[in-house]
């Protein structure tokens, strides 16, 4: 043990006091790390993956000089965390990929209602909380991505078609912990009722088998490689993939557009200011930045989402927004639909 021997030259007292000092210093410094850090930069809890949100935030920092501290994790996990931290939370803002989670946070009294003209002008009311405690930033649709060499687009009309046994081992789905899967199932439940939803879930559970992914990008990847024929993802993952690999044999199919159909399942990524934030001005500045034309354009260009501001165009590669119909369930209902949805998912045993 050469390492131990070389240390033995030091006196034990030096080592011991070194340890103690290090430990005390470490504890002393870090036990109050949240408040220490909160002194200057904005702290953001983000349920969106770092890759999608960080470029936008960097651009905010470049524009305003306000630096940003980012904690990326699961959306539900972050809401849990906000609840647990209460007034002591270092977070100033919460960004999520799901309106239901934002609504739940609002109902738990975690968010601060904003009274900002900029917001009200920019974002249509159906994409905001009733009291503006959260504001949608960008829209996304739950679509079917398919491999053009394996599937004809007319083979699938509705999401529910994916439960058909003919797609056994040919579909990929997100895992049950993902909030947009939960939101999607909630909307299917609200539209078709529990029993039909249960059959749908059982069908895709069998068809997907082990093709259950944590990240939508992996689903798109699997479809592109031909590992599976179809996948359920948020639309922008497909376009982000195509932006890097234009030759990938994949395409987007917007489901449930048939006569009397449910309409495409829409969700929004949104933001809310945390009630106990000590940097209200900076936080508002960020919200303002994100709903402004420039900010919305970033979501459109970088992330391939549908901007919620009417005067900002989506990426031209995307399916024209006016060409399809969205489901009619209001986003704020996602919160109350959540718990029974989770029970159903668990009963079916989705992974």
């Amino acid at each position, binding site marked *: 043990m050469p390492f*131990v021997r070389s240390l033995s030259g030091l006196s034990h007292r030096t080592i011991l006091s070194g340890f103690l000092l290090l430990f005390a210093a470490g504890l002393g410094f870090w*036990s109050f790390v949240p408040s220490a850090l909160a002194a200057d930069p904005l702290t953001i809890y983000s349920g969106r993956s*770092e890759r999608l949100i960080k470029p936008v935030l960097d651009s905010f920092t470049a524009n305003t000089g306000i630096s940003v501290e980012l904690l990326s994790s*699961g959306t539900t996990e972050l809401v849990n965390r906000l609840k647990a931290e209460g007034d*002591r939370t*270092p977070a100033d803002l919460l960004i999520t990929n799901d309106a239901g989670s934002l609504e739940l946070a609002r109902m738990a009294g975690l968010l601060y209602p904003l009274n900002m003209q900029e917001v009200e002008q920019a974002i249509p009311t159906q994409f905001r909380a009733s009291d503006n405690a959260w504001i949608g930033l960008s829209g996304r649709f739950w679509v079917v991505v398919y491999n053009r060499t394996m599937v004809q687009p007319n083979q699938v009309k509705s999401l529910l078609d994916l439960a058909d046994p003919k797609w056994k081992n040919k579909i990929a789905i997100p895992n049950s912990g993902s909030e947009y899967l939960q939101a999607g199932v909630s909307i299917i439940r609200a539209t078709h009722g529990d029993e039909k939803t249960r059959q749908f879930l059982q069908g895709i559970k069998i068809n997907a088998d*082990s093709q259950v992914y944590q990240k939508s*990008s992996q689903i798109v990847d699997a479809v592109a490689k031909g590992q599976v024929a179809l996948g359920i993802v948020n639309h922008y993952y497909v376009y982000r993939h195509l932006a890097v690999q234009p030759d990938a044999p994949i395409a987007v199919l917007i489901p449930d557009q048939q006569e009397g159909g449910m309409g495409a399942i829409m969700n929004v990524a949104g933001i809310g200011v945390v009630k106990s934030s000590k940097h209200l001005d900076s936080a508002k500045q960020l919200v303002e930045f994100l709903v402004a034309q420039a900010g919305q354009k970033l979501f459109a260009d970088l992330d391939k989402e549908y901007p919620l501001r009417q005067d900002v165009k989506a990426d031209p590669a995307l399916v024209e927004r006016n060409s399809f119909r969205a489901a009619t369930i209001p986003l704020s209902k996602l919160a109350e639909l959540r718990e029974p949805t989770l029970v159903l998912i*668990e009963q079916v045993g989705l992974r």
Partner: protein
Amino acid sequence: MTTFRHQLVSPLQLAALAGAGMILLPLGYVTAQALSADPAVWSRLWTTRIPELLFNTVSLAASVAVITLALGVSTAWLITRVEFPGRRLWEGSLVLPLAMPTYVLAYVYSYLLGFGGPVEYLWQLVAGPQSRIFSPHSYWGATLVMALDTFPFVYLLSRSALLSMNVSFEEVARVSGVSRSSTFWRVTLPLMRPSIAAGVALVILYVVSDFGAVSMLRYQTLTYAVFQQMTGRSDNTAASILSLLLVVLALIFLITERWFRQRSRFYQTGGRYRSPERRRYGWFGTSIVTGYLGLIVSAAFALPALLLIQWSVSPEAQATLDSRFFGFFWNSGTLAACAATGGVLIGLPIAYLANRRPTLLNLGCLQAAYAGYVLPGPVAALAVLVLFTKLAPVFYGSVVILIVAYVIHFLPAGLQSLEPALQHMSPNLEEAARTLGLGMRDTWRRVTLPLVRNGFILAWVLMFLQTMKELPATLLLRPVGFDTLAIRVWMEASEEYYQLAAPSALLIVLLSLPALALLVSKDWRAA
């Protein structure tokens, strides 16, 4: 002369009690939460998740056990009973897989075995186009990765059993006219049984509590499910229930391992030691043995390590080596240093009292400290989380809570180095100091501490590196802006950005190597 009545509570005793309390309390809270849960939640879980999760967990553990058994015993036998060129090199390199965190090996294999990956390509050259190999994201994928990562446990224990076994037993069999191969089956293997069983139990414990590989390979085990419940649900009831099950399962294997380890001590005593005769193999035997060992070592370590290096030098990976990367490195380092220091400071009084004054209370404290063994990362995280939100919410979201989780989780590893150091040191040395006029405190300072220093350092290094590799508790409890190397590997690799994950992964592997050397050198000499 000062005289005193028997002191009931010394500061040392208080420290040990506080340490044990710190570890038991969270476990108690989780248990209480699980047991006080609405029976409806229990029955819902029993009818939905639990059967599948239990089946997955147990069947994964079983298949990994079988494979590690075969790999571990065969390699140990070759190394100890056969002489061939390069034997010593192989002897050491067979433990290298222990330096690979499971999530690193898992992510390398999800590339290697993945759809359209290199192995499939090669396979299609042989078996024709369209032919598929098994997916890494499956039962067999998880089995392969876990088995490659953990067989060195069985190898190490079998190896020391073979080395310390009295050769006379085998010679008696040969003298009685039993052939070489049936001597192995009828004498050698039965004598190794307790050691092998201890090794396999260790492997199972490891598999049951692993988070890294199963999360990367999306294989649903209890540990992974606890993590998913914690991150996907707004209350922790279901997570607590699954945790309790997991703890019970782990406890069963821990007790099994202990029991066999004690028996193995009994089996190996007696008789004078003579090192075994090694059979010499010719070029044919040598090439087969070398091929076999080469296959194992390259699958479990060399190939993944090379891939990591290749990815790390790619331009994409090089671009990530900025100040942020060194920030992650620094975070990992300071966190691990704090956890290791905390662990040693808490572990020392507990280990000391249990060894010097083995009262029921002190032994109880020691057993409590070993509870971390049966607390897989997500459970440890859940436990401190629940406790801190109830008792000291001030620390929620700070580093303290993370360090406490680390200490609980890795204290057993530290104690395993501290305890032998204390046992090694005769209590007479302390008594001699007392007869020379030193009080208790001075005796500690001038005799005990200097003498346990090496064990102390070893414990520190081991806990440091375990913490550095730790994934689930860090994911769940890290404060804002406190990503570590392990977190980066997981975040990048779980989106299949293999190149971007590689530098962090490689760094973790490289840092683990010296710790592995420390860990193994104990076993090496003991044998």
